[in-house]
């Protein structure tokens, strides 16, 4: 075989090298890592890389965004739908500082991303040179790892490390800052070797059998066990293992918004969404269960509400790949360290097959209350202004739960997460941890590149849309097919809701005016439509979905509509309000 020959060759002959620039080595490395799409924006300090990119047109697709923040969100959207590492390029100084929001968002939502920034020449470092900023120090708190390259020969190994760190263990964003001399410098390139190990880095903790056994024993004796699942299931590609665990155990399971879609919304054991605007049943039952099994979720304060009144009656089993998450917010009785793709099957093996029929019925009873007092009216109103809920509901009916829904941040986000159906994993793309307005439009562009065969619908508020609407230019230029659904309530809705409920309706600077979005889209050669009557809704949604390219649909919805249920801040999850 060839391989045997190669082995002997490497032993006897010096390694074959080619003389290449740092920039070429970088691009070769990206290709070796399976990168096919890069989101970026050029500038002086990254020009050598862009110059090299000119010759890689056939292998690397570069998407020119309109702002570097857009590049990071697009890379996130790409990573979240494809499961691959998102890649973004930016120049030094202002280019690099524009990445910070996206890095912070990716860091808190554990999204694998590698950002490459250009930097001034190494001899100018620390001199306040033109467009020099201390990118490494600025991005340290918002990256899983970062590194400044000053010598081209470092590039292959550093890039390999970057990809390994970004995607392994608990994934996250990594930034490599490359000085311009290193991009230009020629060196003897030995080819690219992926990184599989770093001595000071343990991506996965060792699975401890005794904890699995304790967890199984606890689950087997539980009368009212309850599963909370988060993005860890998706990040570990453990959807199958998770489904097997849920189905064998017969335990009701509820999701955080980052875990949506790990099992289909309509799965009989899926009991709904957790958190501040989650469903009634799962929130109340958190304080009624006897064993709480948290899987790949981190007890965010938006999920737990008041911590000292959170699930105090329950024994807690916490499965997480990141040991630092265990006991961080909620004390675990049994910590199950490890990748849930490995731990779940071990656990499933040890648990008894059960049906918690009565316990499940309690959830369904709460469902009924929520349906009758709230959801019914929200999704099927017959008079008055349109609700966000009915728009999402109609969208659902038409897309049959198969679309990828990308949301921005605000009321529409909560409504979309609550009412959209997710038949597939990786189909709810939202800014969960950072809550970044402006995320939606660029993330949807990236999401479409990440999963070209799916319909991608961006659901965005009139406020958030105006934060990154320049990315319409990216849509125009790349002709990417993204459906943009603006739910316009002429308010910064979520803030207005809080002002109404907690600040005596003192509407301080939440009244936002908008341009004619349809005309705006038109100026970018994107088709569009605005509707303000219920009768037009289904037709307009159909028109949007059937349109061959991108389409912007603006739906005028009720101005002062609130998202309920709601766990008011500082309250316990059991004190969730239905109105």
């Amino acid at each position, binding site marked *: 075989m060839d391989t045997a020959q190669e082995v002997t060759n490497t032993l006897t002959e010096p390694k074959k090298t080619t003389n290449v620039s740092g920039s070429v080595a970088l691009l070769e490395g990206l290709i070796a890592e399976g990168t096919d799409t890069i989101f970026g924006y050029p500038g002086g300090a990254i020009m050598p890389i862009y110059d090299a990119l000119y010759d890689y047109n056939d292998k690397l697709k570069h998407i020119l965004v309109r702002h570097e923040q857009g590049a990071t969100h697009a890379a996130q959207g790409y990573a979240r739908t494809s499961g691959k590492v998102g890649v973004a390029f930016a120049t030094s100084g202002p280019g690099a500082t524009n990445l910070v929001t996206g890095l912070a968002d990716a860091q808190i939502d554990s999204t694998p991303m590698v950002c490459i920034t250009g930097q001034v020449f190494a*001899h100018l470092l620390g001199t306040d040179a033109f467009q020099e900023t201390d990118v490494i120090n600025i991005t340290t708190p918002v990256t899983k790892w*970062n590194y400044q390259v000053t010598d081209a020969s470092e590039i292959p190994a550093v890039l390999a490390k970057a990809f390994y760190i970004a995607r392994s263990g608990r994934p996250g964003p990594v930034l490599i800052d490359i000085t311009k001399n290193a991009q230009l410098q020629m060196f003897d390139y030995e080819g690219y070797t992926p990184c599989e190990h770093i001595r000071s880095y343990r991506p996965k903790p060792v699975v401890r059998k005794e904890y699995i056994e304790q967890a199984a024993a606890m689950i087997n004796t539980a009368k009212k066990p309850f599963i909370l699942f988060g993005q860890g299931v998706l990040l570990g590609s453990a959807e199958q293992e998770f489904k097997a665990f849920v189905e064998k155990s017969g335990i009701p399971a509820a999701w955080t918004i980052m875990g949506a879609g790990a099992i289909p919304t309509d799965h009989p054991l899926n009991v709904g969404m957790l958190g501040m605007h989650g469903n009634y049943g799962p929130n109340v039952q958190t304080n009624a269960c006897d064993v709480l099994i948290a899987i790949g979720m981190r007890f965010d304060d938006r999920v737990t509400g008041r911590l000292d009144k959170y699930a105090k009656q329950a024994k807690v089993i916490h499965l997480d790949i990141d040991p630092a998450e265990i006991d961080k917010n909620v004390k675990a009785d049994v910590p199950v360290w490890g990748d849930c793709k490995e731990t779940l099957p071990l656990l499933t093996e040890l648990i008894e097959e059960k049906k918690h029929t009565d316990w499940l019925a309690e959830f369904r009873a709460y469902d009924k209350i929520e349906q009758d007092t709230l959801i019914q009216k929200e999704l099927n109103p017959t008079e008055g202004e349109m609700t966000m809920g009915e728009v999402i509901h109609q969208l659902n009916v038409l897309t049959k739960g198969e679309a990828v829904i990308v949301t921005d941040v605000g009321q529409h986000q909560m409504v979309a997460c609550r009412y959209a159906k997710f038949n597939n994993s990786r189909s709810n793309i939202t800014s969960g941890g950072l809550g970044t307005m402006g995320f939606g439009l660029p993330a949807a562009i990236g999401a479409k590149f990440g999963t070209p065969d799916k319909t991608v619908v961006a659901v965005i508020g009139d406020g958030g849309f105006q934060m990154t609407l320049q990315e319409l230019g990216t849509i125009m230029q790349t002709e990417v097919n993204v459906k943009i659904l603006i739910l316009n309530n002429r308010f910064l809705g979520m803030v207005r809701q809080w002002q109404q409920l907690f600040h005596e309706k003192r509407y301080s600077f939440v009244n936002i005016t908008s341009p004619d979005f349809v005309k705006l889209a038109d100026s970018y050669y994107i088709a569009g439509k605005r509707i303000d009557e219920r009768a037009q809704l289904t037709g307009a949604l159909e028109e949007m979905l059937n349109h061959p390219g991108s389409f912007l649909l603006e739906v005028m919805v009720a101005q002062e509509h609130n998202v309920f249920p709601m766990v008011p801040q500082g309250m316990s999850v059991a004190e969730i309000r239905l109105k």
Partner: protein
Amino acid sequence: MSNSNEIELNGKQEFTITAYTENRIGILNRIAIIFSRRKINIESLNTSPSEIEHIHRFNILIHETEEVVRKLCRQIEKQVEVLKVYYNTNEDIIWQEMALYKVPTDTIAERAPVERLLREFGARAVVIRKDYTVFETTGHREETDKLIEVLQPYGLIEFVRSARVAIIKDSEGFNRKLREFERREPGEEVIENEFLDKEKNVFTM
């Protein structure tokens, strides 16, 4: 005696965190951020190469509850370039701080029972010049503090104390594992910016 071993009402006490890290530019910053973003004050911090080449050892002294310290250590250990983190109470460790005292030579020579002082405090004269003399002691905070008091009347000019260095009593330490790590996969040299001094000889726009 020291009261620093005692757990106060709020559950806080002194903890010494020992972290082994790769010798990498920026790791101090990553570790420091873990404290500063939680508004936790570092009482003293020492970092230096360990007995193993390429591996650095941090000693960080903080005054906190054990629960907070445990969480901090997990966050530190999570950093890519951190190999291992321990935390210990004062009972678990042997620790020392070093102090230097600068006093005017004439007054100290004329007026102080220098020999007695030195003996009593286990101090050592490091430098004796015409204008000043520098003494050194090592010990716990209270011990090095005492000599300040005594020297004050003789015109103490300057005083400096090092961060705490500590060795864990229990355990065989991390040494064997570290050596094993270093044997199997030697650490990398930190690449220094070789261009920094070369100015325009390298490249210009």
